[in-house]
Structure formats: structure tokens, C-alpha cells
């Protein structure tokens, strides 16, 4: 059984300016948003909540574009607002990728041994790329902050370049080496603790023996 929808406004005309402007929104949605959204889904294997909030906001503005009770200027403003939310959704997707890449890469970068033994490139090259990656991200963030309220999307290509370099860093991490390293680190830790226990036990035995022989 379908929902009975009674039209409350006129039928949209193809030469209607706000609807024509909305075509730009949907071009951007398909050409820019869908690829970054797909990247986040491929990376997380889940949906990020932030993007969904932006989509919710976009829908409320698109609804107003189709509300023919409103004047043309208000409807045009709502097209701009929908585009603004779309730009923020694209930026959010890129920043989520940045956060997730950082989380993984920093685990390696901040551990000298892992950086040395678990990466498929020289430590020097990894450090160099890591510095370059952070520099690109800082530049992208600066561009974004400088264009707040003007054009948030200006920083999108810069974020993408930084994330591509972050991906290279991620790909250089050798999971097999990392697993082996973690396993052998645990073995070494247990060995050193067992040795410390044995030495401590022997020392206490020796101390009690010496104490006994002195009395």
C-alpha cells in the first residue's frame, strides 16, 4: 500500500532558477562527495556518524528549494546552504581519513623499534615521508582556516594529496613483520621477567645462606 501524497504546491518548472542551481549541487554530490564517502566506507568498513548529520542538514535545505510557498531568493539561499553542507561533508570525510591514518601511522612512528624493523622502507625515508605528510596536512588545514565562510572546498585537493601520501606510509607498514615483532617482544618481555624472578630468588637464597652462616 502506497502513501497518499497530496501536492501542496505547484509542479516544479524546468526553467525554475533554484532547481537549475540545484543541478550544480548534485553534480558536486556525484563527482566529489561519492568518491570520498566511498573511501571512508572502504577504510572504516562502517559509516561515520558525522557525515550522516551533514546529509540530514542537506535534505532539509533541498526540501526548502522545492517549497514553492517560499520566494525565489529564499529558495536560492537554501541551494547555497545545501552546497555548504555538502562541502563540509566532503571535508569531514577527508578529515576522518586523516584521523584514522594518523592513528595507525603514529603507532609506528612513535615507536623507534617498530619504525626500524616493521616498515618496508628505510627508517630515513619513512621519517622523511612522515614529515612531508604532516607538512601537507598543516598546509591543507591552513588553507581551510583561511577560506572559512568563503570557500571551504578550496582545501579539498590539498587534503587529498596529503592523504595519498599517508596511504603510502600505511602501505609501507609490514603486517607480518609487525605481528612477529609484537610476538617476539612479548617473548623477550616474559624471558626478562622470568630471568629477573630467578635472579631475585637466587639472591634471596644466597642472602639467607650468608645470614645463616654468619650466625
Amino acid at each position, binding site marked *: 500500500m502506497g502513501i497518499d501524497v497530496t501536492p501542496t504546491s505547484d509542479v516544479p518548472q524546468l526553467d525554475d532558477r533554484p532547481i537549475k542551481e540545484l543541478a550544480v549541487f548534485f553534480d558536486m554530490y*556525484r563527482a566529489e562527495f*561519492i*568518491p*570520498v*564517502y*566511498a*573511501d571512508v*566506507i*572502504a*577504510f*572504516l*568498513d*562502517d*559509516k*561515520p*556518524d*558525522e557525515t*550522516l*548529520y*551533514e*546529509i*540530514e*542538514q542537506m535534505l532539509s535545505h533541498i526540501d526548502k528549494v522545492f517549497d514553492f510557498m517560499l520566494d525565489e531568493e529564499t529558495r536560492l539561499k537554501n541551494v547555497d546552504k545545501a552546497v555548504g*553542507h555538502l562541502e*563540509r561533508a566532503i*571535508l*569531514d570525510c577527508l*578529515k*576522518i*581519513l*586523516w*584521523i584514522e591514518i594518523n592513528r595507525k601511522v603514529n603507532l609506528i612512528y612513535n615507536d623507534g623499534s617498530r619504525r626500524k624493523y616493521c616498515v618496508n622502507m628505510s627508517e630515513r*625515508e619513512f621519517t*622523511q*615521508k612522515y614529515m*612531508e605528510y604532516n607538512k601537507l596536512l598543516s598546509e591543507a588545514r591552513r588553507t581551510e582556516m583561511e577560506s572559512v565562510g568563503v570557500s571551504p572546498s578550496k582545501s579539498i585537493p590539498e587534503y*587529498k*594529496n596529503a*592523504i*595519498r*601520501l599517508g*596511504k*603510502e606510509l600505511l602501505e609501507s607498514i609490514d603486517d607480518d613483520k609487525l605481528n612477529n615483532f609484537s610476538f617476539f617482544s612479548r617473548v623477550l618481555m616474559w624471558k626478562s621477567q622470568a630471568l629477573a624472578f630467578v635472579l631475585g630468588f637466587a639472591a634471596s637464597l644466597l642472602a639467607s645462606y650468608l645470614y645463616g652462616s654468619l650466625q
Partner: protein
Amino acid sequence: MITNHGGIRRESEVAREEGRKTIFFEEKYGVDISRFRSISDVDSFVEKELGRKLEVRPINSSIVSRSGNLFPIVKYDVQRKFRRMLRI
């Protein structure tokens, strides 16, 4: 042409030349993103590949905007609650 920047090879330039629009998606799943026209196309494809439904994951960071949301988000499985109420 792959250019070097102080000995650093830029994957980004390679990707641009190959015309890849995504950074992870196309390489991971071996598909062309131009096939996907909406988020539901992407979601259903990834769900099919993963063999499970996608969950909504909270991303807590000051870098990502909250889109003016002040209220806490409640996870609410309507279908499950409804089934439980009706004892189906």
C-alpha cells in the same frame, strides 16, 4: 611521469595519471567509482562485500564538525524493539 620531491616519490601523482578518483575504494574492491551514483549504491555494494550491514561509527574528534548537533545520539534498533514488543 613520477616526480621526486627531495627523494620522496609521490603516489598522488601516479594516482592522478591513472585517473583514479578514489584513494582507497577502487583499489580495495577493484571497481570503477563512476558506477556508483549515490551513497546507497556504495553502502549496498560494501555490505555485500563484507557480508554484513554497515554500522554507524562515532568519530570523536575536535577536527571534524558536529554540524550544529548538540544532542547525544541514541542507538535505536527499531525493528528489534518492535519485534520484542509484539513477541514475534
